[in-house]
């Protein structure tokens, strides 16, 4: 039952409850991103950065949420005219909760130090060979990759559950519209957030 709530809280909780949770999560996630050096530089992106100004994660999250909400709302309205913006907005806000865990992996620049050492190994990269990496670092990156993918899947499940509830979508075509909306939002947010750096 609790797992069902973690994957689909949108059937049970009111929009005001979800809005509260989503807003709180966004605030905490933004603080964590500032503290541990992460940027949410796209609707479905998280990357680590050496220099993060305090306002940047807040702006990233706000912009990503609004952009993705608008894209999904357009898709939702096309599927079902009764789709409400508030239902889509809380869906996006709550669905992004898994992303807010990712900065925690960069405590003390743990992950970014490993990836930087890989990228800084220019000689190996120019020669087209695999750079020197210790087994420990490789294991850390693999574990981080698996956990990141798991969080991303959780995000997609939450986002689709909420979208399905908000729009009463049923067919495979509706799923296609859902996917297209995410792609459009990712393209727009990526372009704007990269150029706003």
């Amino acid at each position, binding site marked *: 039952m609790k797992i069902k709530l973690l994957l689909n809280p949108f059937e049970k909780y009111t929009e005001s409850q979800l809005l509260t949770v989503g807003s709180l999560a966004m605030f905490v996630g933004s603080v964590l991103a500032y503290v541990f050096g992460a940027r949410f530089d796209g609707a479905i992106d998280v990357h680590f950065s050496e220099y993060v100004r305090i306002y940047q994660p807040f702006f990233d999250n706000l912009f990503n949420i609004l952009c993705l909400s608008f894209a999904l709302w357009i898709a939702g309205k096309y599927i079902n005219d009764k789709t409400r913006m508030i239902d889509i907005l809380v869906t996006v806000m709550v669905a992004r909760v898994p992303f807010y865990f990712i900065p925690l992996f960069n405590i003390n620049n743990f992950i970014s130090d490993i990836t930087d050492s890989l990228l800084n190994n220019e000689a190996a990269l120019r020669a087209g060979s695999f750079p020197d990496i210790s087994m420990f670092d490789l294991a850390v990156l693999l574990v981080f990759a698996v956990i990141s993918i798991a969080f991303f899947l959780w995000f997609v499940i939450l986002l689709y559950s909420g979208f399905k509830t908000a729009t*009463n979508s049923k067919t495979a075509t509706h799923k296609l519209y859902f996917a297209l909306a995410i792609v459009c939002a990712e393209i727009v947010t990526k372009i704007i957030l990269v150029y706003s750096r």
Partner: protein
Amino acid sequence: MKPKLPIHCPSCAETLNVSQLTCSHCQTGISGNYALPVLLQLTEEEQQFILAFFLSSGSLKEMATQMGNSYPTVRNKLDDMIEKVKALNAK
């Protein structure tokens, strides 16, 4: 215990018709072939949902609070039932 009114034939799953009605006061029996009203062709859960909708004066928000579900969940259920009733009416 209140027995449930069967709606579908246990043999071929087609919708049942009413062929006999009895007066519980004077035992008069009436035979015929009457189609079940559309509302009675719904499941008991769906009938309870419609009754709850009626008793809450059509307020989906109030129904959502009573049922412990979110507003869009209740709205989706209502929309699905509207489609079902339209399909039954069209038959």
